[in-house]
């Protein structure tokens, strides 16, 4: 029976967390592919910019050659000059003022063209990264919207938030600067090397001697960063989850004088976070100085060997300057390389954390929807040998299911009340009607059809649900009440509020229906929240109305008024009514007593009283209280 219940707990996370950095980053490819055109264009302009930019040191060196009265290094570069080189050479004279002016202007021309290209590159490539960030963020929300409650039981809000903000940001860094700078690095490397080789193969070889060391360093640091960073992100998420929970329960914290205790607990986590950052710092602070050192060594080699070659006559001052120029160009790539490594490693770790959400697939979806077009839901509900355990909590209550072999028919339009002790499974039963949890196939039927065959959207559209713990959004009361009814008019809101018996009270508020309620409905009283939630369900005019202890926080007089109004509303609707009060449920067509997940009694009020079981006892007790009150 647990066929449906077990896999929910096992949605991908374990698999995802193990993924290698490459694998994580590969998950970005489909996003990049969407902007193929833009990316290609960006890469093209980047290449063009690199090509043009590579001319700069060459021209500078030429000028130096000219003023030191030698042959141009361009001449030296190749036996067979290309057309561009021939063109440049035709302006070259040693020790000539005109040459100086011409090449200085050339320098400016080159940097201008290069500037235009790099403007385009940045605009296009970074723009694409923002586009992708936009897509990713929407996709994250999309997945979150599709995940069932079981997912939110497993994951704390603060954790998820941290993934959607901090981690997304790290991934964006890969897509924008990460990709742009690494491409840039490659282009500059290739261009610089190809020109340097032509000037002096020997010196080029020397210059690249330290490269293996750089590669090794980058690899080592990359790994360190990746490993530590993942832990850091996890700790950051835990930290925000902690703050989040503390603030959610701030009243309890205050009332029980737990501020100190909470501060200490927070401090511990704060310290953990700082400590693991420190561990990263130890490696990280070595990284840039080491890179700079290696770069310095390269300059040193050029100075040393370049001078030697010049003295031997196979090199010129201009060539030396050009080499200096190329290495200066390479410095940036190498620094960028370090930076990019950092970005990529962090991004990969974070992408792993995003994939936890992006690859989470809901257990509850429309996969089993019958091919034939959906009819309208009339509201008949049937539970057939329903046995259910919450995923992940299979061992609670000694392995006894939360709901055990429930058989119950609720004909469309009738009212069924469920009573039973705390924790007997009433809310779980109600939640199964809205398919918030997945019951074993065929055990819950709507209008005679297995619930999984109804499109989720249509199913829930047919239901008005008042959950046991109320959640309102920090919007106006009007928006909250009209929450689930797309086209509700002011009149509809007014009417629903009236039936829920909150209208008059709201009209007493200074801003009436435009009153903005605090988060979760914080600034309303307990009863006001519940009634707002009731109005929110009623305005949908649902076929099925589920009231899960919906009047628990409402006083008797108001309850009475609401019940009177509801009697009219529920006449033509299937109603599932959960309550602890006989007064609330006694007029139901059928009353069901749940106990430890089993239906132990069912029938109407009179039947059950006659039977002398739990319900009769409940009724007795409630009467007894009244009796006592009379004395």
């Amino acid at each position, binding site marked *: 029976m647990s066929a449906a219940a077990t896999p929910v707990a096992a949605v991908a996370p374990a698999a995802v967390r193990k993924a290698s950095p490459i694998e994580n980053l590969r998950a970005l490819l489909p996003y990049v592919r969407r902007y193929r055109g833009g990316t290609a264009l960006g890469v093209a302009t980047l290449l063009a910019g690199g090509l043009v930019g590579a001319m700069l040191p060459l021209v500078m060196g030429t000028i130096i050659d000219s003023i030191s009265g030698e042959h141009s290094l361009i001449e030296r570069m190749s036996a067979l000059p290309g057309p561009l080189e021939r063109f440049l050479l035709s302006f070259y004279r040693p020790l000539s003022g005109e040459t100086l002016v011409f090449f200085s202007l050339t320098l400016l021309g080159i940097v201008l063209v290069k500037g235009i290209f790099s403007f385009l590159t940045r605009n296009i490539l970074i723009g694409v990264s923002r586009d992708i960030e936009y897509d990713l963020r929407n996709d994250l929300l999309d997945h979150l919207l599709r995940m069932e409650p079981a997912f939110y039981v497993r994951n704390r809000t603060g954790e998820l938030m941290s993934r959607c903000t901090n981690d997304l940001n790290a991934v964006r860094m890969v897509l924008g600067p990460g990709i742009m700078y690494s491409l840039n690095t490659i282009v500059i490397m290739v261009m610089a090397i190809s020109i340097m080789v032509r000037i002096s193969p020997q010196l080029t070889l020397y210059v690249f001697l330290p490269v293996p060391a750089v590669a090794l360093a980058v690899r080592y640091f990359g790994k360190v960063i990746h490993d530590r960073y993942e832990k850091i992100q996890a700790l950051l998420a835990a930290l925000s989850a902690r703050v989040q929970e503390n603030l959610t329960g701030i009243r309890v914290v205050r009332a029980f004088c737990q501020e100190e205790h909470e501060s200490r607990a927070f401090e511990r986590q704060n310290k953990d976070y700082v400590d693991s950052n420190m561990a990263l710092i130890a490696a990280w602070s070595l990284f840039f100085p080491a890179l700079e050192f290696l770069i310095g060594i390269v300059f040193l080699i050029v100075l040393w060997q370049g001078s030697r070659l010049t003295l031997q006559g196979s090199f010129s001052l201009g060539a030396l300057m050009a080499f200096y120029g190329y290495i200066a160009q390479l410095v940036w790539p190498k620094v960028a390389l370090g930076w990019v490594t950092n970005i990529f490693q962090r991004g990969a770790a974070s992408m792993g954390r995003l994939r936890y959400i992006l690859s989470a697939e809901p257990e509850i979806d429309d996969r089993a929807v019958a091919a034939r077009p959906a009819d309208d839901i009339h509201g008949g509900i049937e539970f057939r040998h329903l046995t259910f355990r919450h995923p992940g909590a299979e061992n609670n209550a000694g392995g006894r299911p939360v709901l055990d072999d429930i058989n119950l028919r609720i004909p469309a339009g009738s009212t069924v009340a469920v*009573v039973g002790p705390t924790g007997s499974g009433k809310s779980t039963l109600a939640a199964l009607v809205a398919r918030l949890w997945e019951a074993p196939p065929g055990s819950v039927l709507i209008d005679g059809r297995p619930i999984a065959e109804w499109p989720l959207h249509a199913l829930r559209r047919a239901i008005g649900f008042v959950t046991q713990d109320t959640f309102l959004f920090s919007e106006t009361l009007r928006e909250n009440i009209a929450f689930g009814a797309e086209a509700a008019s002011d009149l509809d809101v007014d009417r629903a509020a009236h039936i829920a018996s909150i209208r008059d009270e709201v009209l007493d508020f200074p801003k009436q229906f435009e009153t903005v309620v605090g988060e979760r409905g914080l600034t309303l009283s307990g009863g006001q929240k519940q009634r707002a939630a009731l109005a929110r369900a009623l305005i949908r005019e649902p076929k099925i109305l589920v009231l899960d202890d919906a009047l628990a926080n409402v006083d008797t007089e108001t309850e009475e008024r609401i019940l009177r109004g509801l009697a009219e509303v529920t006449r033509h609707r299937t109603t599932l009514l959960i309550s602890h009060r006989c007064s609330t449920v006694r007029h139901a067509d059928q009353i069901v007593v749940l106990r430890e997940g089993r239906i132990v009694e069912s029938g109407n009020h009179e039947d059950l009283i006659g039977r002398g079981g739990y319900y009769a006892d409940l009724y007795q007790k409630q009467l007894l209280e009244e009796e006592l009150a009379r004395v």
Partner: protein
Amino acid sequence: MSAHQEEEALGKLYDAQLTRRLLGYLRPYRARVTVAVALSLVSSGLTIVGPLLLKVTVDRYLVPALAGRLSSDVAMHGVGLVVLLFLAALCTRFTLDYIQTRMMQRVGQLAMYDLRRELFDRLQRLPLAFFDRNPLGRLVTRLTTDVDTLNDLFASGVVAMLGNCFILTAIIVAMLKLDWRLALAAFSVIPLIVLVTLLFRRSVREANRRIRVAIARINAFLQEHISGMTVVQLFNREKKARKQFAEANAAHMDAYKDAILAFALFYPAVEFLGVLAIAVLLWYGGMRVLSGSLTIGTIVAFIQYAQQFFRPIQDLSEKFNILQTAMASSERIFRLLDEPITIQSPEKPVPLGVPRGEIEFSHVWFAYTGGAQPAEEDWVLRDVSFRVRPGQTAAIVGHTGAGKTTLISLLLRFYDVQRGQILLDGRDIREYSLHDLRRHFGIVLQDPVLFSGTLESNVRMGTEGIDRPAVERALDEVGLGGFVRSLPDGVAATVGERGSTFSVGQRQLVSFARALAHNPRFLILDEATSSVDTKTELTIRAALDRLLTGRTAIVIAHRLSTIQHASQILVFHKGRLREQGTHQELLARRGIYHRLYQLQYKDQEIRVHATAGDAASAAVPAND
């Protein structure tokens, strides 16, 4: 969208006061910061060595040797010496940089640790009214993202910027020393750079502001929708949510694209100006070399300097972004830290040992909004006066929204009254320290809150002296013992966020047990059994009868049956205390209470045969 105002107003780049305050966080580590700054100065100083050595090599060895004035061997020997010097400089820089970076990064982390702690402590002391106004998600952001942003500033920003400035100065001095005319020629582009930077800053600031607003909206949205996901799904709001989110998301993207434009223009502009300076150098310097008034080595060194000169400038503008974000973050952080703690212990609190247990409200007026002089319609409590004697139980009844919960909040000083006073043992509660006052109360709030952890940690909270047997006893007393024992881990069972894996009734019972375990002098029950079945409720009531002896209690309940034994019943209506007395007295008055009572018990006519007492015990099946 007024909630996002905070993100709107800010983002000034430099604010002396703010900066001073930020630097204050470095004060505890000033020794280390001083060392790091000193090291970074030395290391920056060393950067000007490279070009100088190049100049020496060119002018002293290469040019003379090429001209045949110096033998190759001697020249090579000289070059070797220069190379060694260069190597020494490199090694020194490496060491200095490593030490300096590590020191500053660590200091940054420590400063962040302090700041985070200060923020959290502040949050523990701010009045609840503050939390009514401020979305939780935003407060979380202050402690995480905003603080991390500051870290960038502390760890790399401060020292790097000082270093950059020093490098610039050193280069300027070196250039002027080498040849002041050539130096001035090179500096001619500086005004242009300043202009470009100013333009850039202006255009980026507006975009940055929009980005921050958008991010705040996105986060608030996510936070709320993750918390209320079930409601979103039950009410088919997915599509609408997607749409709303996409809008905020798009605003974010658009703002960023505007910022990109500014950056995309800025970088090439700076590069162009850098090359312009070099072109000027080459042209003007080259002419002078040709006329023999300048050495080639000087030009070569100047080119190096020019390149070095522009890197820090470009770097600074990169840092500019960090700086601006950090400034905005710090402003928000400080605003939170400056949030007045309106409710706190007095300077010299009256000590409160074991209270006698008398509570008195005297002409209390209270409103949530409107400050000290609320508008007439804002009053939630109006002129409320009553007294609960030591050991008595007072019951509070009234329609929903009458102000019952508010009353409790005032008693615990979650809020302060606008007029009148609340007295405990004859003294205004504002004379006691908050801790002294609250620790005598055990309260079950209307909305039960459980924390992640275990059942045990939820009952005990952080209070020492509540051992496991006490936890178990409390759980037994609220009738949850059997259930807890049926869990594989018993009281050590894991509790998820908000206790979502427990039924609502169970959550309520756990928070009830929490109040009992703390063995308080005053017990406050706000609808404490509203979601609990009748049988458990009766069990609890029996336990309470025992527990309440000698304690003062305030009980709020809608079910009159739960409160009729109270020594006195207070009937509230629309914020006023309308009736007061015992059950019998109130019935006799035939007022609101009488009406409530009539309504609740009008079922009475349908009588059941068996006599109450017997039936109750006979009919209960023997389990639970």
